[in-house]
């Protein structure tokens, strides 16, 4: 079917132009591409990793970064870190939230699973004031709110099945957390700023948040650590956790997508044969875009 090939080619061409939107310049190096369990067509989160990532968030990042769209109950929902309902209830009870009581007074009560994750600062101004004038961004969708440009022709490859790539934001966060280094000679780093290789413009208000051994992970059955307690491991775990926070239904999406697409392929195949059968009594192959054929006539 020549027509189909032409059709496919034009779709490809369109795909080319449509992804051109991604182009932009940047002086920072591209973050290295990591392997994530949740990448690809069959991707799934690694529950143990999400639990460790949550621990890093809770013990370190949550001192500065809010995560207002995530509720305690989400931590026990399918496709997430896989805590039990009882664990989440106990966890929530460790936090206080304030609400109005029947007398109109602001009172504190222990949080419940339905409550949103409590923010470290009462508002954005307070958050900025406590952090040298820059408010730490909310974590809820941050992993989707950052990306980097791969340029032509990689951005075309990135859109394709099986070789595709949609974890740019997660890779960026992982790289950022490992990107603190001494500034190159001659670079002036003002007070309150920190030099980071991957941050756009290099001067970031966040001081290096992680160091080796800072968070103590639960030990394995033999009493040995399951994963190393290093900045690289912490940053991997917390980045994966942030990917889940930004896209809590990722597993359901990919699983449903597989079934939907399989169904559509079978349906299209059947429809193709029905079409062939219906057209069989008309005779004649249908041609498009084939001037040679007509010229010969």
């Amino acid at each position: 079917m020549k027509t189909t090939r032409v059709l496919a080619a034009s779709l490809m061409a369109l795909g080319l132009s449509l992804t051109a939107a991604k182009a932009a310049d940047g002086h920072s190096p591209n973050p290295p591409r990591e392997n994530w369990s949740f990448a690809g067509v069959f991707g799934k989160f690694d529950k143990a990793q999400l639990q460790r990532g949550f621990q890093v968030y809770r013990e370190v990042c949550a001192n500065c970064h809010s995560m207002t769209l995530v509720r305690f109950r989400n931590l026990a929902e399918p496709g997430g870190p896989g805590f039990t309902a009882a664990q989440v209830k106990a966890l929530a009870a460790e936090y206080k939230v304030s609400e109005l009581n029947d007398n109109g007074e602001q009172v504190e009560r222990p949080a419940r699973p339905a409550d949103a994750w409590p923010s470290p600062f009462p508002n954005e101004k307070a958050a900025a004031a406590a952090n040298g004038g820059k408010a730490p961004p909310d974590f809820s969708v941050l992993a989707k709110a950052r990306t980097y440009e791969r340029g032509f022709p990689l951005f075309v490859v990135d859109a394709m099945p099986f070789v595709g790539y949609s974890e740019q934001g997660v890779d960026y966060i992982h790289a950022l957390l490992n990107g603190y280094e001494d500034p190159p000679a001659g670079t002036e780093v003002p007070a309150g700023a920190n030099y980071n290789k991957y941050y756009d413009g290099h001067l970031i208000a966040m001081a290096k948040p992680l160091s080796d051994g800072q968070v103590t992970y639960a030990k394995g059955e033999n009493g040995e650590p399951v994963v190393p307690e290093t900045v690289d491991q912490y940053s991997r775990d917390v980045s994966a956790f942030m990917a889940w926070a930004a896209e809590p239904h990722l597993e359901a999406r990919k699983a449903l997508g597989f079934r939907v697409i399989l169904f559509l392929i079978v349906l299209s195949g059947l429809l193709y044969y029905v079409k062939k059968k219906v057209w069989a009594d008309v005779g004649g192959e249908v041609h498009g875009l084939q001037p040679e054929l007509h010229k010969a006539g």
Partner: protein
Amino acid sequence: MSAHGTAYVPKSGLAKWFESRLPLVGLVHSSFVSFPVPRNLNYFWTFGAILIMMLGVQIATGIWLAMHYDPSANAAFNSVEHIMRDVNYGWLLRYMHANGASMFFVAVYIHIFRGLYYGSYKAPREVLYILGVIIYLLMMATAFLGYTLPWGQMSYWGATVITNILAAIPIVGDTIQSLLWGGYSVGSPTLNRFFSLHYLLPFMIVGVVVLHVWALHVTGQNNPTGIPIKSGKDVVAFTPYATIKDVFAAAVFMIFFAYWIFYQPNYLGHADNYVPANPGVTPKHIVPEWYFLPFYAILRAVPDKLGGVILMFGAVLILAFAPWLDTSRVRSSNYRPIYRQFFWLFVIVCIILGWLGAKPPEGGYVIASQICTAYYFAHFLLVMPLVGLFETPNRLPGSILESVTGPGKQVDSGSGMPVGAAAAPPSKG
């Protein structure tokens, strides 16, 4: 309505009663069942049906989203995230709607270029074609309005850039701008207005689509040879022939659509739109959605704001004049050896313009945009009139049937139309 093919004959008493008062079933029957369709249509002709499907998808998912969406500057961003997180299958609805808009444009661009290649805009289909250009304009307005609704950084700054552009229109520009803003800058009143209009325009599109199909009913479809239907042997009945082909093509298109929804749902969007709108922080690059990029490149090709606006709108409006700019007697580029090459050059220039629209407006990109913009207009203003005058077209087949079976051969099965049908297919032009 004229009686193409086998006319609908109401059978039951109720059907007769109704048909003699409002011949609605007969109208649908004559447009989608017995309507004679050229037998040589290729798959490029299935995109009309795909577009109707996509319009349906956008309206259905949009109405559902609107049940959970909150169009105020403080709540819009979080209400979209509420849809993504807490509404059952909300993520599916939202990703269908956001990617559906892109797929709608993929389909409409294939549909438009199909028409340009096969000369479908030429007499007697000018009105049909211009109605199509109007649909395209309404789609662009709808998609632009929709993109502001999630109220992320790109939503906010995109709305700011475009409303500022409109202010450059002489005399009425400022009024249009303040009407859209509802204040002194883009803000909550703007978002409310945009939501209202975003809900309205798709239904206006439905109205124009009805006119578009009506005009099609009158003139009949063009076909890859561009020659008119001459006898019943040139056609098949819409149902089952075109119906099954359209349904098959729509199913294949759904696979393509589903891939984006489930595996690359954010690829066609901008990461910046997951940052809540912030009037105090301008994004480094304000870039529209991919389907606007060629026009964005044209807008920025000239240093003058008003000039850019004129060129940008001109680039869309000039499409409407194609029927009179093209001087060729022959419709289909299949038989136009010279124009065919210009056609593909035009396609390539449009793609390059799209790429340039995503680049910052500086240095070589601006010069390239200027060259491509000039060529874009030259295609309509020079190539179309001149090539038509000087080109010698290839010999056309004697009939649509001949183009399918080869000259002189007869098919035993004959026409796919029911016996006695299609005696007088439309043969204008």
